[in-house]
């Protein structure tokens, strides 16, 4: 088995913590402090994380950010633990339980008194949107609590090792990873109460947020919410699409750039949007071979500069191509692709097999909005923004009073846009809860101007149209 942990990397440094061992089905597994259970197991060579319920097919991880539940195992007797977002601990006992976990018994924990607390502002999600919302509201004087599932806020910025686009003032040219750290530090300084490793479990009437934190159930009675829960990776239908080795691009990015573990040896990238192109480049940087990038549309989806970058490294980009099958016994050993015509019909005679051990799906993201649906926010399908998004005012307020949205949950766009939306939502919510003042108005104007700038030009056209469709008047929002 080849070493999966990355030690030398051109732009990243992995400061691994203390080495220790935990137990997986009777076997000792090495892990480093800070590593998730899934990462340590993957680095050890495990690819089959669970067995599916009915078809009894092996499954690997998929999203690596706690959204898809493909990685659930039993940890110290507790079933259904998402191992990709749970840190490994010394002497932990981990087991696969497949579809039929054992009843945990009553000694795994005990109901504790439910804590209920009143707070002014709850920010849900610690990515660029959530952090900027928190920073802005705190700067204006609000009491802000930020809930984030990860151990360090920064959201998906943490895995962005490339320098950022956007305007120089908005941190372009700085690597995402650094922007994330800077924002988190600023939030901390401004007195934002950051609650890491906290799962938001749902919304209850009237403006109550339920969370699981430090093993207990807590209810926050809040004055207002900025929801910045981010996005979900799209999945794709093709034969054997559930094989271990078929991973989401975000999952691959997390594993590689946050955890310092390469997914495999040779990758077929499906999708040529910026995510597909950037992750391909990052794979090359980590020393992984990228066989090809395929794209179903007739043109490349992402920026020319990103495409040129990987072409210079010899990676072909095949447009009008689609994947039909993952080849292998019970995990990926290759892929079958073919060309499609304008009507998405197969072009006969173009079918061919590609050698690869990983199929990486970069077929788009869609807004994660389940919390907002629980809160009765009115939704609308906006293809330009990646799926169902909440209706909102110009100030990012949803149709439910006191609930704002920002970032990918409001529509899939770039990180800079997410940060600007966060700034706008944070200021607007502060304004709703307080007296009007000049500084708040100024920050709102600044954010709106930035957003307008970012959505100019041909690449801004799609989001510009999308945002127009789902932005409604104050009155509609009630």
């Amino acid at each position: 088995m080849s070493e999966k942990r990355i030690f030398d990397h051109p732009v990243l440094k992995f400061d691994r913590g203390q080495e220790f061992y935990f137990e997986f089905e009777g076997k000792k597994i090495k892990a480093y402090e800070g590593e998730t259970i899934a990462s340590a197991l993957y680095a050890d060579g495990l690819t089959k994380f669970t067995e599916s319920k009915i078809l009894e097919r092996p499954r690997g991880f998929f999203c690596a950010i706690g959204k898809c539940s493909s990685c659930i195992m039993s940890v110290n007797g507790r079933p259904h633990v998402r191992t990709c977002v749970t840190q490994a601990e010394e002497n932990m006992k981990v087991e696969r339980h497949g579809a039929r976990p054992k009843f945990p018994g009553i000694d795994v924990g005990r109901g504790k008194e439910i804590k209920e607390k009143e707070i002014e502002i709850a920010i849900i999600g610690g990515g660029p949107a959530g952090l900027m919302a928190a920073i802005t509201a705190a700067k204006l004087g609000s009491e802000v609590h930020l809930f984030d599932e990860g151990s360090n806020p920064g959201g998906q910025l943490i895995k962005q090792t490339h320098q950022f686009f956007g305007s120089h003032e908005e941190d372009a040219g700085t690597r995402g990873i650094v922007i994330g750290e800077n924002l988190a530090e600023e939030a901390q300084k401004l007195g934002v109460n950051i609650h890491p490793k906290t799962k938001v479990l749902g919304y209850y009437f009237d403006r109550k947020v339920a969370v699981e934190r430090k093993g207990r159930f807590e209810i926050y009675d809040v004055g207002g919410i900025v929801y910045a829960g981010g996005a979900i990776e799209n999945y794709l239908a093709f034969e054997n699409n559930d094989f271990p080795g078929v991973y989401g691009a975000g999952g691959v990015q997390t594993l590689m750039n946050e955890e310092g573990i390469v997914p495999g040896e040779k990758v077929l990238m499906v999708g040529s949007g910026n995510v597909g192109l950037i992750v391909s480049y990052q794979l090359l940087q980590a020393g992984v071979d990228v066989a090809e990038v395929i794209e179903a549309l007739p043109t490349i989806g992402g920026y020319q500069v990103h495409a040129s970058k990987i072409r210079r490294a010899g990676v072909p980009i095949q447009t009008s191509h689609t994947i039909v099958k993952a080849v292998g016994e019970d995990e990926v050993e290759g892929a079958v692709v073919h060309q499609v015509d304008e009507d998405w019909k197969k072009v006969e005679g173009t079918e061919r097999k590609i050698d690869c051990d990983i199929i990486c799906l970069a077929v788009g993201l869609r807004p994660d909005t389940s919390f907002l649906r629980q809160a009765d926010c009115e939704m609308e399908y906006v293809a330009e923004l990646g799926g169902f998004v909440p209706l909102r005012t110009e100030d990012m307020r949803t149709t439910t009073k006191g609930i704002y949205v920002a970032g990918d949950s409001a529509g899939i766009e770039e990180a800079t846009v997410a940060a600007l939306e966060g700034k706008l939502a944070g200021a607007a919510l502060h304004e709703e809860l307080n007296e009007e003042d000049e500084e708040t108005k100024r920050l709102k104007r600044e954010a709106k101007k930035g957003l307008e700038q970012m959505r100019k030009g041909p690449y801004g056209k799609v989001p510009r149209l999308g945002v127009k469709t789902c932005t409604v008047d104050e009155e509609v929002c009630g």
Partner: protein
Amino acid sequence: MSGHENTGVVRKEDMNIPDEERIEKGPVVIMECVENIPCNPCVAVCSFDAVKMKEITDTPEIDFDTCTGCGLCVTECPGLAIFVIDCSYSEDKCKVTVPYEYLPVPEEGDEVMALDRKGEEVEKAEVTDVRKSGKTYAVTLEVDRKNVWNVRGFEVIG
């Protein structure tokens, strides 16, 4: 179809390039950034004000007479789309400076394999300069004059 939209490879005619006279005069920047993307670090970094943009989504507008070919912008471009060429010092050789973010990092004097925009091998070339800013290197190669419009990357040999 063969435009960069389909191939990811830009052609000379897609770009805004300096004229022959300017190229002969001394080092000069080549920005292979041809779409209207929201990005502008190249404007901010140039201390000679040689790069301009009205809107952030414009393509960089370069004043080739002001550009000194200093190469500062090469490592600042998040698209790794900026190169510097120097055709002023020899009859048959030219220098090409390319951004580089892989391992291993070559040293001055090393021989590397120069690659074109498709990653295809062009010629063996000598590394004449290695500069670093942040995590990005700007590596200068000496190539055959006829290859100055082809070489845009390299691979370390061995």
